[in-house]
C-alpha cells in the first residue's frame, strides 16, 4: 500500500496540530469499532493507540492520501489480526496454568446486538464492522484483513445473516 503514498513532506508543528485534530476526530470511533470486534476493552485500546502511533509516524505522507481514515482502519485491523494470530499461536503451545478471565475485560453483553455479535467468528465480525459500520469498500476491508475482496463479501454476507437470525431468535 505504500506505493500509493505521495512523496514525503517535511513534518511541521502545523502537521502535528493537524494530526491531533485527526486523532480527536477518530479516537472514539476507531476504539468502538475495535471493541465490537475484539470484545475486550484493553485490547481495543492498545490496538487503537498503536495504530494512531503508526499513522502519526507517517503523518507527513498519510495526510496527503485520499482517505487517511481508511488508512487508519486498515492499520488498526492489520495490527489486531497480527496480535490475534500471535495470541493463538501462544495459546496452542502453552502448557501450564490458564489465565483466569479478568472481569474488567468482559464486554457488556446486556445489549442484544453486542450479544449477537459474540456468536460470529472474529473474521465475520471484522468484515461486518469494517464494511457496514466503518463503510470501507470490500477492497479496503480485504487489505485490512489480509484476504481477497470476494472473501470479505462472503464473510460480511454470512455475518449479516447470522446476526439477523440471532437477533430474531432472541426476539422470539
Amino acid at each position, binding site marked *: 500500500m505504500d506505493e500509493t503514498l505521495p512523496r514525503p513532506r517535511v513534518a511541521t508543528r502545523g502537521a502535528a496540530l493537524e494530526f491531533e485534530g485527526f486523532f480527536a476526530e477518530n479516537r472514539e470511533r476507531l476504539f468502538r469499532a475495535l471493541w465490537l470486534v475484539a470484545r475486550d476493552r484493553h485490547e481495543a485500546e492498545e490496538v487503537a493507540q498503536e495504530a494512531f502511533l503508526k499513522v502519526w509516524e507517517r503523518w507527513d505522507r498519510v495526510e496527503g492520501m485520499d482517505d487517511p481514515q481508511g488508512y487508519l482502519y486498515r492499520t488498526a485491523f492489520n495490527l489486531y489480526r497480527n496480535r490475534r494470530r500471535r495470541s493463538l499461536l*501462544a495459546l496452542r503451545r502453552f502448557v*501450564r496454568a490458564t489465565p483466569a478471565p479478568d472481569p474488567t475485560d468482559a464486554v457488556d453483553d446486556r445489549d442484544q446486538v453486542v450479544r449477537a455479535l459474540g456468536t460470529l467468528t472474529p473474521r465475520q465480525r471484522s468484515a461486518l464492522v469494517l464494511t457496514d459500520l466503518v463503510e470501507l469498500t470490500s477492497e479496503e476491508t480485504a487489505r485490512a484483513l489480509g484476504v481477497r475482496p470476494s472473501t470479505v463479501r462472503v464473510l460480511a454476507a454470512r455475518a449479516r445473516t447470522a446476526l439477523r437470525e440471532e437477533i430474531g431468535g432472541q426476539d422470539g
Partner: protein
Amino acid sequence: MASTKDLLERAERSAPIPTFAFDDLDRARVRHDRRKRIGTAVFALALAAIAFGSAVAALRQPHGSTVGSSGPTATLPPATGAPLVADPSQYYYRAVLFAYEGCFSSGEGECGSTGTRLDATFWWRDDDSGRIAVDQKEGYGIDAGRFEAGTFPNWNGIDVSHFPLETQALTDFLLERSAEGGSSPAPLVTPPPEGAPNDGQLWRAITDLLVDPHVTPTVRAALLDVAANLQGAHVETDVLDPAGRPAHAIVFGNWGGEIPERLYVDPESHEVLAWTMSSTVDPDSFGIYLVQDAGVVTSTETAPEPDEGSVPLTLLSADDLADLAHPG
C-alpha cells in the same frame, strides 16, 4: 427490521469510553522514539558480528567473552550510581524476556520444558498492588492482571523489607532462609569444583530472588554482591550482555561446572541486565532471562520516561533470545 448499520451503531453505543488521550499517545511516541534511537545503537552493536559473536560466546562458554576485560576478579566493581528507590505511591517497573529450551539435568534432575518464551512487564509497589502485562507466553505459567493492594501474586512469599543489605549479613540470612527447613528452601545444586559446599544453594536462592518482582533494586544490588562473593563465582568486568549492553558478569558453574550461569550486571546501577545458562553437555540447551527496561514510574500504564530507566533499553524479543542462542 433495522439495517445492519443501524444495529451496529446501536451496539457501538454500548462501548465504554476510551481512556487514552492525545497526551498518552504523545508520551508513547516519545518512548517509541527513544526505543528506536537506543535500538539503533544497540542493534548496530549487537548485530555486528563482533558483538554478536561476543554475546553468543558469552552464552555458550563457561567463561564467556570479555570486551577489554580486566579479567576475572573476586568482587564486583562498585556501582557508579545509586539504586532507584520508589516513593510509596510509585511503582517499580520491569519489562522482562525469558527464553528457555532443552535439558539442564545431565541425567541427575528434571528437564525444563521446551520452547518456553515469556515477554512480560511488571509494575509493583510497596503496598503489594500493581499490574502484570503479558505480551507473549509459551510454556510459562503466569497470568496478566491488575492487582489491588495486598493482592499482587507472591509466588515465593517474599517480603524483602527485613532483608539485611550488608553482604555478610545477607549471606547468613540467605543461607538460613534457603536451607532445608528454612522459609524458602533452595533446590540442591552441585557447586563448581572450586566452590564452597553451600554455594549452589545460595546461587539458586539468589537467582530466584533476582527475577521476583517483589525484590527492590536496592536488595537486588545487595544480592549481586553476595553472588559475586561466592567462593565458586568469579567476576568478569567490561563485558557485553546478550543484548550487547555494557556489563559486568558474575559467572558460576552449576552442576559441578557443567552448567555455566552468568549474571550480567549494569555497571552504573547494579541492576540485573540478564541471566543466562548454558550446558557443556548439551549445546542445544539454553536459558536466557533479559531485562528489557526497568525503572520507577507513577502509573501502571506507563514505562520509564526517556533517560529515567535504570538499565539501557533493548528492543530484543523473546524469539530474538532464542536466535541469539542458536545463531544461523
